[in-house]
């Protein structure tokens, strides 16, 4: 029994409705020990609701939640062997930092000696030794979040839950704390479910990403796989910054050769797509959306053996960030974005030679918006 359930967290057919608003629909999920699962999606897609169901703070409408192989669907939060960190830090305002961290242990019946040694350990690990006697009101945001993490760590739970823990921090601190969380994950071998709306955070932290859209998990997989092979246009557009370029096209089959016809400025170009693994075959004349990441749109010559196409396109916007230039290029009625070397001279309004590397394209059905 236990052997087949080596998933630390398993969610089966979870549905959650508030009155008649369906917030989560038929969620299935399983993660193994040591995994770092990031639930990512736009605001309001149900990430927090899903996490609250796992924590036992919301009761699911139907479905099952198993933690460590045991059915915890109806268990109280305290019996689930979990710890949770919140966006607002949620520290106990009337208690010192030390007491914030140990209060739960005390209530759960730990001795004073146990409390003290656990406190010393996490305080050292999180570098908050010097703050132990302060009240939360006298801490900065970053310090508060460390304390909140300390409170979670002393529980030594099977599963950590994080709900947008870095969203209230400024950009620099966010990057710092992100690295810290990643380091803790490695050091402790902890299993984590982490919610964020920030795809950069998701990509940099996760061993597994679950992209959510409107109460369903659109795609679940390792970050690189989600980035390279998005299952639909929503995931493709949500993951990656700047966002993937979408170009309407039509399939043309000529003998063995498969091409994608793209029209702009009155002309039609045929782009080679023989290398693209169309799953269930593809029909001549099918309407598709071609997805190309900005880093494959550039001025530099891709290696000769990769399928590519060269176009002269007019820049409409240039943003420099030091290590490359992010350029918007007019493409028919719309625009595509590309990344150019900072050495390249780019003038607004003057066409530049643009190479589009077609080796890593995504092709979606224009009707269903699913990956082909």
């Amino acid at each position: 029994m236990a052997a087949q359930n080596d998933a630390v967290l398993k969610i089966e057919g979870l549905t959650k409705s508030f009155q008649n608003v369906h917030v989560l629909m038929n969620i299935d999920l399983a993660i193994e020990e040591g995994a770092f699962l990031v639930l990512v999606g736009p605001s309001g897609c149900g990430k927090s609701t899903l996490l609250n169901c796992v924590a036992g703070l919301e009761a699911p409408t139907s479905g099952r939640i198993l933690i460590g192989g045991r059915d915890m669907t109806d268990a109280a939060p305290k019996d689930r062997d979990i710890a949770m960190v919140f966006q607002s830090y949620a520290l106990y305002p009337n208690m010192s930092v030390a007491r914030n961290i140990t209060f739960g242990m005390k209530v759960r019946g730990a001795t004073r000696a146990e409390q003290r040694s656990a406190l010393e350990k996490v305080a050292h690990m999180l570098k908050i030794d010097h703050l132990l006697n302060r009240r939360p009101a006298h801490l900065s945001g970053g310090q508060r979040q460390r304390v909140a993490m300390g409170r979670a760590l002393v529980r030594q739970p099977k599963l950590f839950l994080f709900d947008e823990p870095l969203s209230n921090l400024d950009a620099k601190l966010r990057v710092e704390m992100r690295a810290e969380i990643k380091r803790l994950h490695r050091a402790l071998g902890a299993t984590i479910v982490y919610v964020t709306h920030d795809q950069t955070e998701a990509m940099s932290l996760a061993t597994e990403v679950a992209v959510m859209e409107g109460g369903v998990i659109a795609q679940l997989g390792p970050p690189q796989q989600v980035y390279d092979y998005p299952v639909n246009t929503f995931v493709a557009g949500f993951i990656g910054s700047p966002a993937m370029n979408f170009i309407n096209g039509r399939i043309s089959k000529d003998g063995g050769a498969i091409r994608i016809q793209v029209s702009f400025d009155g002309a039609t170009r045929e782009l080679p797509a023989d290398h693209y693994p169309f799953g269930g075959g593809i029909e001549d004349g099918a309407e598709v959306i071609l997805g190309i990441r900005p880093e494959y749109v550039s001025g530099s010559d891709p290696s000769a053996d990769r399928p590519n196409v060269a176009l002269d396109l007019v820049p409409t916007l240039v943003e420099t960030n030091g290590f490359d230039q992010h350029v918007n290029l007019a493409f028919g009625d719309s625009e595509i974005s590309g990344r150019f070397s900072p050495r390249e001279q780019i003038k607004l309004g003057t066409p530049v030679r643009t190479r589009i590397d077609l080796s890593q394209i995504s092709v979606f059905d224009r009707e269903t918006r699913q990956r082909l």
Partner: protein
Amino acid sequence: MSGWLTRNIPKIVVAPSLAAVLFFVYGFIVWTGYVSLTRSRIMPRYDFDGFGQYVKLFRTPRWDVAMENLFVFGLLFIAVSIALGLLLAVLLDQRIRAEGAIRTIYLYPMALSFIVTGTAWKWILNPGLGIESVVRSWGWESFSFDWLVDPEMAIYTVVIAGVWQASGFVMALFLAGLRSVDQEVIKAAMVDGINLPRIYVSIVIPSLSPVFLSAVIVLAHLAIKSFDLVIALTGGGPGYATDLPATYMYAMAFSRGDLGQAAASATVMMMTVAAIIVPYLYSELRPRHD
């Protein structure tokens, strides 16, 4: 000219009321203070006589009763109103149905004047008309509830009526405080393994200390001022068993014709209020460091 007017119009507008307040409030405080140091009887006399009125006041058994009543009434009124108000607020905080209606029902007594409250409770507690006679008519012939006419217990009827009036208001204060507590703190505590009563006792209620302070201040000044409640409920009786300093002062000034005693008791009352208010103002108005 018009520039001068624009700049000074706020001062001009508040000037009459400022003058009125200075004269009628602070002027008469000073006047009362002076009269308490004279031998005034029915009419004020202005020959200085030292602290004779205060010595006489503190030797009067009726004043002792009034001060003791204020102490008993004030303490019980404040403590019971806060305990009951807090309990109601915590219960109402559990997101029950019809919360708005229940809140209004509890808050409503505060909209009544103490005269109405006092009169209503006079009938309810009257042994011949109210609870005692109703319970006897149900068949419990030996039932007795006559605190209103019992000199030992009458002060507690004032406490009952006062609590009935004020606890809804205290509940509203605490409910607003509870609602401003971060819900994520409560969720965090639940995940941390702390049960709901303990969350309230150890985390939520301690974070409401500013609300406690406001409630105590409001209730304390209600207690000291609660002249009309006693007048309407017991009239200070039986005898002078439920006299408070305010009713004592009223009796001295307007029925006993002893302005000196009235002024002395009024001054003692003001000192009592100041002893409560001044530390409060001091703690509220000093610059904050965090």
